[in-house]
């Protein structure tokens, strides 16, 4: 009987071997995948198992990690000036996951990033408590606050960029939300989250990055840039051959200006920009053609769906297949053209920075609890226009602020260039228009800032809405704050 017993013995060892191979497969080979599985609640609990790192603006943490010692969660996230910084930080909720920097930088903030592995192991061996790393943003708290206060109760967004580096100085979206209200998992958190999601004003929407608007007249900057770059016009003082009235090509529809008594007929490029003549730039666009306009728009960042800052903005859109009359409307920022506030700030930044468009960025540094893990290195996204063209466009924009529709943005002792926009939208353009102001300012001390402001103020009187009266004063406050005045 011993031979079969020995065989049974081998069989039993094979069974144990199969079990051992199985656990090696599950825990060794597939282990990290199971650990990171989207249904694995441990991921959530781990995120709040020890102090989470902070998001920093202007040297001050705008986030906190509160020790709550719950059954499942040891810590809870809270924010300083949460509503003001929400478009930057996003939220980090025990019940509702996380968003924006809180999500994208979670590896650093929660200390699980592979670059922290060595330090974590060292800490574990030396018995130091685990601690997440910090994320240093480019946000300037003064500029951020100025933008947030200036927008006030209005619905809209503001973006400020340092044209020389691409650093995002302010990123504001209103109405906003305080992420602290739903950071936990209680009934109150659930209610706050449900209310925010059901709010018709969409406070959770990051309008500065994730909403595209028709850019309206602010797009005329790109049309003018195309005209200079292609050589259609040499100088701002060149007269255009614009008829009045101007009938859209291939149709019998008349393209109108803001008011019929404006001297737009055969106006110079400069005068047309000062007055924001639709006829001049509509015809200019139709003459330049859709491909030339699209090529120029793309150099400024349009149609790019991965301009991560690192939060991914919605792609601004310049259409491909418009008919000539459509192109005339595209050229004045109507029809199918769409842009985010970030995109229009990039246009102003590129013009201000002599045509060089720097890649916009929000994270300057990532740090572990003790040292720096990574530092952002600036780099050029494109040479959007030649320096010569940039000079001409600056001349146009500065004139708009001195003599044209943008007078509300004048700042003493600073060179300010801007462009207003009042964008029609909705079915047959019946929606309340969006007010735009896109501008830059150069201080005497060499400081620069490029700003885009959009106000979708549905509450205001239709006649009151114009980029010059609504958006320009907001842009002015932001530029003043950024220049330190």
């Amino acid at each position: 009987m011993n031979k079969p017993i020995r065989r049974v013995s081998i069989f039993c060892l094979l069974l144990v071997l199969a079990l051992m191979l199985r656990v090696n497969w599950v825990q060794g080979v597939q282990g990290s995948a199971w650990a990171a599985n989207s249904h694995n609640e441990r991921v959530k609990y781990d995120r709040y198992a020890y102090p989470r790192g902070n998001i920093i603006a202007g040297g001050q943490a705008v986030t906190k990690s509160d020790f709550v010692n719950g059954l499942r969660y040891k810590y809870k996230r809270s924010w300083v000036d949460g509503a003001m910084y929400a478009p930057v930080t996003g939220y980090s909720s025990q019940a509702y996951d996380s968003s924006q920097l809180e999500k994208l930088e979670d590896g650093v903030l929660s200390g699980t990033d592979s670059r922290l592995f060595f330090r974590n192991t060292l800490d574990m061996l030396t018995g130091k408590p685990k601690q997440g790393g910090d994320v240093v943003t480019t946000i300037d708290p003064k500029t951020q606050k100025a933008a947030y206060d200036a927008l006030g109760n209005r619905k809209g967004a503001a973006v400020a960029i340092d044209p020389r580096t691409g650093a995002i100085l302010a990123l504001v979206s209103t109405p906003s939300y305080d992420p602290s209200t739903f950071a936990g998992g209680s009934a109150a958190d659930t209610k706050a989250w449900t209310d925010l999601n059901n709010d018709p004003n969409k406070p959770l929407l990051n309008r500065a990055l994730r909403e595209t608007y028709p850019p309206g007249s602010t797009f005329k900057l790109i049309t003018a840039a195309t005209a200079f770059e292609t050589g259609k016009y040499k100088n701002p003082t060149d007269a255009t051959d614009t008829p009045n009235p101007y009938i859209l090509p291939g149709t019998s529809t008349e393209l109108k200006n803001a008011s019929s008594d404006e001297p737009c007929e055969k106006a110079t490029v400069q005068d047309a920009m000062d007055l924001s003549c639709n006829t001049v730039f509509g015809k200019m666009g139709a003459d330049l053609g859709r491909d030339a306009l699209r090529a120029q728009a793309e150099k400024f960042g349009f149609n790019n769906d991965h301009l991560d800052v690192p939060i991914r903005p919605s792609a601004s859109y310049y259409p491909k297949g418009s008919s000539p009359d459509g192109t005339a409307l595209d050229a004045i920022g109507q029809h199918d053209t769409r842009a985010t506030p970030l995109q229009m700030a990039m246009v102003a930044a590129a013009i201000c920075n002599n045509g060089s468009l720097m890649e916009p960025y929000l994270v300057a540094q990532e740090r572990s609890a003790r040292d720096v893990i990574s530092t952002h290195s600036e780099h050029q996204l494109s040479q959007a226009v030649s320096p010569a063209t940039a000079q001409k466009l600056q001349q146009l924009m500065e004139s708009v602020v001195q003599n044209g529709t943008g007078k509300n943005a004048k700042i003493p002792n600073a060179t300010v260039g801007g462009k207003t926009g009042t964008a029609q939208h909705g079915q047959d353009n019946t929606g309340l228009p969006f007010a735009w102001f896109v501008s830059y300012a150069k201080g005497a001390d060499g400081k620069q800032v490029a700003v885009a402001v959009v106000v979708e103020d549905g509450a205001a009187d239709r006649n009151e809405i114009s980029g010059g009266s609504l958006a320009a004063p907001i842009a002015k406050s932001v530029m003043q704050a950024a220049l330190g005045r």
Partner: protein
Amino acid sequence: MSTFDVSSSTPAAGRRRADSASPPASTVPTRRNTELALLAFAVAIPVLAYANVGLAIDGSLPTGMLGYGLGMAVLAGIAHLVTRRFAPYADPLLLPLATLLNGLGVVMIWRLDKAGGLLRNNFPAAANQLMWSGLGVALFIGVVVLLKDHRILQRYTYISMVVALVLLAAPAFFPSRAEDFGAKIWIRFGSFSIQPGEFAKIILTVFFAGFLMVKKDALALASRKFMGLYLPRGRDLGPIILVWLLSILILVFETDLGTSFLFFGLFVVMLYVATERTSWIVFGLLMSFGGAAVVATTESHVKTRINAWLDPMAAFSPHPPAQSSEQIGQTLMALGSGGTTGTGLGQGRSWLIQFAAKSDFILGSFGEELGLTGLMALFMVYALIVQRGLRTALAARDPFGKLLAVGLTSAFALQVFVVAGGVTGLIPLTGMTMPFLAQGGSSVVANWMLIAVLLKISDTARRPAAEPATAIPEPTRPDQIPGASS
């Protein structure tokens, strides 16, 4: 090897065999001191684990540590002394290994008790488990003291058959609860419940061993060759087929796939060992595949289990299939989160497994908190128990002892494989408890008895002949065996 005098022809047994030419008894080491030293480790490791859990969860040594440590030491000490007195030549590894597993199981149950409200329906169970372990050790002692010789069991071959079948059938007459997931494997008296299948496992093995010892020659020799395989005569095979069929039927009605598989595996292994005919393996596999196919297509309960095995994460989808359970998916995530070295005792979140976290799925908690390293160590301990059991079978001098040892050990090994394989997703899940580790009084008590019987067989096997183990005459022919009236 068809005669009863088997051992003389095997080197392993022959080496120790104490016939007239054997050395004096005193030269055969009893290995009791080895056992004592190992027991010290087997007690110390769970006590340290207990301290570890307390420090990790409460930041202080648990208050019950002294009591737990002393309790375990006293139980193990008594078991050792009894073994020293009544089974001096017994295998020195079995008692320490069982003590280690039992102790670790109690610690893990206590650790899950500490999860409190995080675990649904979390009633403190560690104290109960400790009490059951005490009862298990008491019965272990009872068996070691009272069972003078394992061959006595041979007298109860057919009584065993009846008792085993009654035990297996009993749960079908008791109502099952909703949280039992359709398996009817408990007998309940109020809040008290036992799982008779655990005891039936041992008793059925006694029957198989007794029956096969008598019938093995007939089964092995009086057969016809058919297509290269030896087919036994119907009248030799009849009783066994009948028992097998009955147990399968009962188990299908009680929807307990694991025990069904276990008994069938046990039956095939013992037939093979008794007859040394490979054809039994072929029959066994054919029958098990046939049975599995039939059960899988007719039983919705079994179908659910198979689907859960094929896609453990289906239960997490927005529209989970009916009756699906998150358990396997949760266990796999627990294992993965534990990784190579584990989170450390008390620092994992295996309470996420929820249902049966302390019983069938306790390996998930071990895997998360002790990691791959811990599970490998546990499997090694189980493998050692199984190998010591089979070594006992090799060393045993009587065919009944051989068959009984092989049967008990194979049942143990199959149970470990079926539970651990099911929990880790290697095979479809079948509701059974991990021997010694899992919460469950019947399981602990039955497995302690199983170890006790193995110890007695190993004691008899290693005992020098000069020191007779028993006064009862060794049966030399089948017809002399009481009760075996075939």
